[in-house]
């Protein structure tokens, strides 16, 4: 009890008021926080390396086949298990994506991040772009090596 004497007594009411303010603040912060997943960044959902690479699809895939063979193989097994029209659609779509410049790719990244239905291909095959978009390490290793491969090499789709 003696030890308590030196401490200023704080009125119960002001403690309560402070508490209520904190709780109200927390509720407000939760309510006004932007939805976490809505925005794209320069590295999400599409890795920065993919936004910036100047390689072609074939170059990128040939590099992945060499430096990330298991990831590449998994993707190709999935690809070969799709019906031909879906395979064709996925190929067309990724060639289209790679034809865009940085700004176009960044915009596409934004569009897919903010609208889950934006990419129609994904409704037919959820992992249609896994080899390109889903793994930063794969994107980094493959874009490091891709420039040394021929710009056009249809065999990359046979793997």
């Amino acid at each position: 009890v003696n030890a308590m004497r030196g401490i200023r007594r704080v009125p119960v009411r002001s403690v309560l008021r402070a508490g209520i303010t904190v709780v109200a603040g927390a509720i407000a912060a939760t309510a006004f926080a932007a939805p976490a997943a809505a925005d794209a960044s320069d590295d999400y959902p599409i890795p920065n390396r993919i936004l910036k690479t100047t390689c072609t699809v074939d170059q990128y895939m040939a590099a992945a086949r060499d430096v990330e063979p298991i990831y590449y193989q998994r993707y190709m097994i999935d690809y070969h298990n799709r019906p031909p029209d879906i395979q064709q659609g996925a190929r067309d779509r990724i060639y289209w994506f790679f034809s865009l410049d940085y700004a176009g790719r960044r915009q596409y990244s934004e569009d897919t991040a903010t609208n889950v239905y934006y990419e129609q291909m994904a409704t037919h095959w959820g992992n249609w772009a896994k080899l390109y978009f889903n793994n930063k390490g794969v994107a980094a290793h493959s874009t490091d090596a891709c420039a040394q491969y021929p710009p056009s090499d249809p065999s990359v789709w046979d793997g």
Partner: protein
Amino acid sequence: MKSAKLAGLASIAAAAMVALAAPVHADVDTDFANQLHVYGIYGQRDYNAWLGKITCNRLGNGTDADAYESAAFLSKNLPQHSTTEQTWQFLNTAITTYCPDQIPVLTSAAGPRQ
């Protein structure tokens, strides 16, 4: 009575099947891993097995034209401290384990390089 006899016969047959079953053969991927261990090549069993199969696949579809290209591919995907010797040991084991039809690729690599 008849059914009891049948059941008895069935159980004898079942016991015989268990007793006569061939000794369980180890999984081929395990054999592969064990052989790699002899060469001091470790790492994930499934990763190595898949890498071996992919190596075969690449030889089969012409992605790698010869054993040297296979070795170059493997050197990119084996642990960085792996030696050239281990790379070739891996290649040799992969071919003999998963695609013995490709053994000529190894034999021709033993001669002078074209």
